[in-house]
């Protein structure tokens, strides 16, 4: 399990683990963490693969993912599914399994971990199937939308079981 995740769970059991989509999103990662919960993004999984490698022991640069990761992905997608989908699912699958809620934004222009549309379709489907609260949002394009966006996430996170607001929320 990811180091940061372990640490967070021990320290603050009341926080909810919220899967973010795009999994690389700065905005969502920030909003979830800022409002007192744990964002589950691909950086956590990538950190695991990267830290597994030694100076000389990088199996496959830059992410240090190995053919075994693609095989691990068989848990989420059959062998007929392209290896890049299975490899990405080996990063996202465990996070989805752990998620207690999810925030999904539409039509992201994102690359790398989010660079494969087929993986993204599978990941969002699994989230919707997972019987967890899901908030779907558009990227804000105006100031008003920005405020609505922030408030929607705030309300959603407040509504999560066990969720509590940390300092920084509300009138300061």
């Amino acid at each position: 399990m990811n180091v940061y995740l372990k640490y967070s769970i021990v320290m603050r059991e009341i926080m909810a683990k919220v899967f973010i989509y795009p999994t690389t999103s700065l905005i969502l990662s920030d909003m979830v963490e800022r409002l007192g919960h744990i964002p589950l993004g691909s950086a956590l999984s990538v950190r695991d693969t990267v830290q597994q490698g030694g100076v000389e022991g990088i199996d496959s640069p830059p992410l240090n993912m190995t053919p075994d990761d693609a095989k691990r992905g068989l848990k989420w997608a059959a062998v007929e599914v392209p290896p890049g989908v299975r490899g990405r699912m080996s990063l996202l699958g465990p996070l989805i399994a752990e998620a207690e809620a999810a925030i999904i934004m539409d039509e992201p222009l994102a690359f790398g971990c989010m660079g494969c549309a087929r993986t993204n379709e599978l990941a969002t489907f699994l989230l919707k199937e997972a019987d967890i609260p899901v908030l779907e949002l558009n990227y804000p394009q105006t100031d008003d939308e920005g405020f609505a966006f922030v408030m929607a996430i705030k309300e959603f996170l407040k509504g999560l079981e066990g969720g509590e607001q940390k300092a920084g929320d509300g009138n300061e």
Partner: protein
Amino acid sequence: MAMSERKVRIAQLSCGPDYSGVQKEINEAAASVNADIFYPDLTLRDIKRNYKDFGLDVRSGDLKLAIARAVALVEGAIDADAVFITTCFRCAEAAITRNELRNYIHENSDLPVVSYSFTERTTAGTLLTRMEALTTIARRKALLARQTQVGMTLGVDSGSSTTKAIIMQDNEVIGTGWRPTTDVLQSADEVIELALEEAQVQMSDIEAIGTTGYGRYLIGDKINADLVQEELSVNSKGAVFLADCQTGFSTVIDIGGMDNKAISVLDGIPGTFTMGGICAGASGRFLEMTAKRLGVDITELGPLAMKGMGDSVPMNSYCIVFGTQSLVNALAQGHSKEDVAAAACHSVAEQVFEQQLQEVDIKDPVIMVGGSSLIQGLVRAMGDLLQTEIVVPPYSQYIGAVGAALLSSGYVEQKKESKK
């Protein structure tokens, strides 16, 4: 040898290799042919603009990035010597993008480009010949552009089952040699001797030498070859030369004794290709076994198959063991030798079709080369599967040797110049 040559910078356009554990294999294959892999750098604005300009609507971000990078390479915004396009095997969106990018780069720039669809099992070894072909095209573009053979040259193709030699003079084949490969060097000596004899010339008359195939380095070293070249570039060149279609698209299929090659060619230069040593049942060896069982020489198998109907024999397996068993059973059940020969040809053609030809875009003319192209039954079976008239050029079994003789003639004038 490669180290004395300049480093080739290969731009990678890809989706998925870093998530499939094969990026290291790509880097290693490139390094072993003295090339560097790099990612063309762009701004987000360029990505959006280039992707929109190209006009292919894809959903995957990494494919959009690959498209934008391709446009930047074609427009000359980024310098590269060659392009390697690679995406996940079995992804339709990626396959469309890969083919379109390859055609786009080929038609709009001088950059050599090779594309490949990987699985998590892809290794540096699999990629090596492709990378070698790519760097060759980058380093020796002028050499590969050659369409006419000049002077008197010798080409030697050292394959896993047979060794071939060809002597050419003024764009014509004047001598041939063919032998099963036993000892690599000895077999080469024999075929060279045969070719010299037929051409009625001496070794001292030869102005340049090219070697290709499995034993190319060993033989090239011994006979002091001017050109030592992998078989993908050489066979493509030989095939379009003999089939007289040196410009435009073509497809070259070579069902060999040990591995099969299917090469999609544009202007005589290989683009996508598959090389497989998947299974003996998809090789010329299967047909040799069949001929033996039928008690005929391999040269008689083709005409025999042409008289038979392959579909009447039930084949339960492509395997060289179980498939051969099916053929023996069919004989015992009273099927004719002709039908059994046709069924064997169909079996090999179908397996190559299913396992390999799906990965390259087949464009007419389809040229079959190598020893197996002389088995008419196999050519007919392949033509039926591809729904096209297959071209078997003269000297098709000498394809590599012809390509080597043709390409090495680039050194004839060069040598004359340096003697002056």
